[in-house]
């Protein structure tokens, strides 16, 4: 029963994928989109079913399908594990997935390759389910790479534009760098535990099996590299902003809500290993904090609506890693969920705006959309309030908990994270003001076409806005349902901080910080009616920020160019030299032949002379050598 349900859960999106690949072109657009949506909705239903089941039984479900490969002295099976963590992830992946599918039916309606779009989205959901339900690292890796592939396909969905293809390629390769880390991590764990199965490793750790902590640290560090590739952390984050080349629903689904949280999922999955290696945890926390700050800085001055959201995603992911690094896995998970709600809402809202603006993404050409797009504006506002950390909205609770943990563990990290949060409030409201307030700055033709999006687009927005509002209550401070729910996946219980005056003080500080950020944005963009200048007018530090600290350029100069240079050098010189050497051997033979030809000068006298000398030498050798 469970096996077949699981298979349905897995294969429903895959069936949708196959249908859309093979028949998508023949059926009408709506059918294609509807089937894609229904496929994901089925998975969502099954996930809900599992959720209720596990809530009552509290027992993880382990399903082994068949034997996959043999490594050294242990087997790796095609098996799946449904526990609290994976079901939680399943719920919001398929749930938000369903919403975004609905949204896409309308959003992508005019695209000629609509069926392919849904095929890829379904494939993505399939791989994402594989990723979260896999019971060992290798199955997880299938999903891990699979979602990377779908990300590649969807970023480069408009394949006629080679810049988009470049972005897709970049995303895939950056991810692959992380994947190599992941692989090495798998090897290390396999070597240490003779297994790559989560439950086996967990049992081994729980039973106190002694492992070489040095190697374990190496392994967890490699896994962290893998996570930082997928979840866009320093130094591998640059692909995510570029990934905005894909259609907006893709940005919402893959590059905000689900795929990029895979790294957090993986680290949470293996929390018991990271707990054993505090040094690596420290690295994770520091990297997370720095990422959140750097990304927030860059987001301050971006003018592309999706780029701002992308950097905000990187920044929020940084906060999650900070929480992970501090050992507060459940808080990271909490933030993942709330972030999925409001960031999906923001992306979809921006998609709605872009849809209305006919593809225009530059905020400098927007403004005043509030009047034209009421629903979009309200939902966008709610999500913005949520991400800025205004109380009662979802983001407030999760972000506040992260800051609180940081405050207790390490004050410096707390300062960095708080700074990032203040900046978040600022740039998000900057985005809101520039887009929805004041006068419209686009062309007349665009103004003429401005309209509220159809209900298929607004419906997901409303649902997500509601979730962004109430989502925070799943982990209300002091009475956290989430913490209770997730307890079974940890070995070591984290001591909860009591709700005391410090808590309220920190909450107050955070809210005040957010309000300061909002206030600055208000004074700049509403009071002073500023509009960011053209690209070439930007100077000083903001130019550095606008150009994203020149990280792409630095990578280009430090890594990509040298590789190309080595490639050219190898191709032009080493290859030639090697080839020349081999040909040289032939040439030496040839030359000896030519020289030998000169010896064969045809003069019999000379031959005789050499003959005599040779004979004499042989005789001398035979008789006189001893």
């Amino acid at each position, binding site marked *: 029963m469970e096996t077949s349900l699981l298979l349905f859960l897995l294969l429903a999106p895959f069936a949708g994928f196959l249908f859309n*690949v093979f028949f998508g072109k023949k059926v009408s657009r709506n059918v294609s989109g509807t089937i894609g949506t229904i496929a994901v909705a089925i998975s969502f239903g099954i996930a809900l079913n599992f959720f209720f089941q596990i809530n009552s039984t509290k027992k993880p479900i382990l399903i082994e399908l*068949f*034997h*996959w*490969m*043999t*490594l*050294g002295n242990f087997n790796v099976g*095609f098996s799946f594990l449904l526990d609290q963590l994976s079901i939680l992830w399943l719920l919001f992946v398929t749930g938000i997935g369903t919403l975004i599918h609905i949204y896409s039916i309308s959003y992508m309606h005019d695209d000629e390759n609509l069926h392919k779009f849904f095929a890829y989205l379904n494939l993505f959901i399939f791989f994402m389910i594989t990723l979260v339900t896999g019971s060992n690292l*290798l199955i997880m*890796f*299938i999903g*891990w*790479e*699979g979602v990377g*592939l779908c990300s*590649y396909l969807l970023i*480069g969905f408009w*394949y*006629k534009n*080679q810049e988009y*293809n*470049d972005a897709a*390629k970049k995303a*895939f*390769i950056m991810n*692959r*760098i992380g*994947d*190599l880390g992941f*692989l*090495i991590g798998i*090897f*290390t764990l*396999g*070597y240490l535990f003779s297994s790559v199965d989560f439950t086996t490793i967990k049992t081994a750790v729980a039973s106190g099996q002694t492992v070489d902590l040095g190697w374990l640290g*190496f392994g967890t560090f490699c896994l962290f590299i893998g996570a930082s590739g997928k979840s866009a952390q320093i130094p591998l984050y640059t692909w995510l902003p570029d990934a905005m080349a894909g259609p907006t629903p893709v940005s919402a689904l893959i590059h905000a809500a689900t795929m990029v949280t895979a790294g957090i999922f993986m680290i949470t999955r293996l929390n018991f290993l990271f707990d054993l290696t505090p040094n690596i945890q420290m690295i994770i926390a520091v990297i997370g904090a720095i990422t959140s700050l750097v990304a927030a800085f860059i987001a301050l001055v971006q003018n592309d609506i999706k780029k701002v959201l992308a950097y905000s995603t990187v920044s929020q992911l940084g906060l999650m890693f900070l929480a992970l690094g501090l050992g507060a896995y459940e808080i990271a998970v909490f933030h993942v969920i709330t972030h999925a709600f409001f960031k999906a809402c923001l992306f979809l809202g921006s998609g709605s705006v872009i849809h209305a603006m006919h593809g225009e993404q530059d905020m400098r050409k927007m403004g005043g959309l509030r009047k034209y797009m009421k629903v979009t504006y309200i939902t966008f506002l709610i999500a913005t309030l949520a991400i800025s950390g205004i109380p009662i909205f979802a983001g407030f609770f999760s972000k506040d908990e992260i800051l609180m943990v940081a405050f207790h563990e390490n004050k410096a990290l707390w300062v960095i994270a708080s700074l990032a949060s203040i900046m978040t409030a600022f740039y998000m409201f900057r985005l809101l003001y520039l887009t929805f307030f004041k006068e419209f700055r686009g062309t007349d033709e665009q103004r003429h076409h401005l309209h509220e999006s159809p209900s298929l687009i607004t419906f997901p927005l409303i649902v997500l806005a509601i979730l962004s509002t109430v989502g925070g209550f799943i982990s209300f401070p002091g009475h956290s349902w989430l913490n209770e729910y997730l307890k079974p996946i940890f070995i070591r219980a984290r001591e909860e901080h009591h709700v005391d005056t410090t808590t309220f003080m920190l909450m107050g500080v955070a809210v005040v910080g957010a309000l300061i950020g909002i206030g600055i944005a208000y004074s700049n963009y509403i009071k002073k009616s500023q509009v960011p200048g053209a690209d070439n007018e930007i100077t000083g530090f903001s130019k550095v920020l606008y150009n994203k600290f020149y990280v792409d350029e630095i990578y280009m100069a430090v890594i990509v160019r040298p*590789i*190309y240079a*080595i*490639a*050219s050098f*190898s*191709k032009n010189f*080493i*290859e030639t030299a*090697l*080839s020349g*050497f*081999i*040909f040289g051997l*032939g040439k030496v033979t040839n030359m000896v032949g030519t020289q030998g030809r000169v010896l064969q000068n045809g003069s019999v006298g000379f031959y005789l002379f050499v003959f005599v000398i040779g004979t004499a030498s042989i005789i001398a050798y035979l008789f006189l050598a001893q």
Partner: protein
Amino acid sequence: MDVSFLLIILLVGAIATFLSGDKWASKIALLFSLAAFGVSVYLLNLYNAGQNINLIKQWVTIPKIYIALGADGLTMAMVLLTTALTPLIIFSSFGNSYAKSKNFYALILFMVFAMVGTFLSADGFLYYIFWELSLIPIYFIALIWGNGNPQSRKKAVVKFFIYTFAGSLFMLVSFIYLYQITGSFLLSDLIRAQLSTQEQFWIFLGFFLAYAIKIPLIPFHTWQAKVYQKAPAVGTMLLSGIMLKMALYSIIRWQLPLAPLAAKEYLYYFVGLSVAGVIYGSIVALKQKDIKKLLAYSSLAHVGLIAAGCYTMTLDGLRGATLQMIAHGFGVVGLFFAAEIISRRYTTGKISEMGGIRIQSPKFTSMFMILVLASVALPGTFNFVGEFELLYSLAQKSVTICIIGGTTIILGAFYMLRMFQKVMLGEKNEKFFADVNFNEGLVMVIIIGVLLFFGLYPKPIIDLITPSLEEAIKVINRI
């Protein structure tokens, strides 16, 4: 029935094809290659049922040479790979018309005959004969039916011939030295030779030269790219799909068992050299302007990893190597076939002259995409299983080497996707590109099916080869 039946079928097929007219040659060749495939499947059943399918007969008394043909799981896997690829390769050539096609197809079957013989031989001398015999047909195939300027083609092909031939002579020297000691060419007798590490080193080196040139490993690879580019698609497929597996197989079958001490003593040098080839091949592939050359260098990178896995002499390494040999065999044949499909329509190999194919032929694009993904070892494809085990075996020996070798998954993605982007994506090309026809599609679908099926369920192959490889490890570790 023993394994010699398979050889007889292939030889008879070659003769029959040669005697038939140009019109029917391709069909007859296909028929015989399918028959050979059927026979090898039947032999596999016999082998699995535990029957004796080996053959051993005295051939020459002085020196003592046997006609010894034998098959274990590893051999069966390689023979099946060969006989399964042959019909595909022959069928894939139906889209081209070759002058004097009876000679062409007869040579193909003859080459397959020699290669299957190489896999099956259990006597060193017989093995050497088959090994060299396989070189002759490909020389003519590449020389007569190749592409491009005849002058430069001749240069490339003759270089290839002399180079590989010269390499093989060192192997012959090693064999003769071993014969001097043991008085027999039988593998089972040769491994009993009592040799010092120094002697083994020289024997190892003799084998190594032959194999390193054939595989090829850097820095012995310079013949490869040009020959792959100049040879007809069928020749390239035979070379890359099967012939280089011959050398990799021989490492496991001959080189390591005959000189285990040397292999252990100098393990890191040979693993390091192989892994260096991985990086080097990947990097040079980045700058290739010709699609076939790019695939050649990518092949260089992949086989470097396979060789590295072989030289680790761990069970994982050998198993991964065998799995990857099969996966790479299918994958590279598919990729070269895709390149051939493109060059059939564009009549050029230059990447810069391609682009925008995806708009015109979505089916071909999907197939090519899957092959590219298989080549970069995406999980779920057969290549992943092999590459994963290979890297795992490297990690057991040295994590550093594993990381260096692992960069293949990054660089591989880099050059393959770059190539895919430039060839397939982008704005519409003014040149017309027809989508795949039924024949082409069939070949592609079979190859993709094999890659995906075994990617998810490699158990049959793992079960087939593991006992033989454990046996091989035991022989290697006998001293």
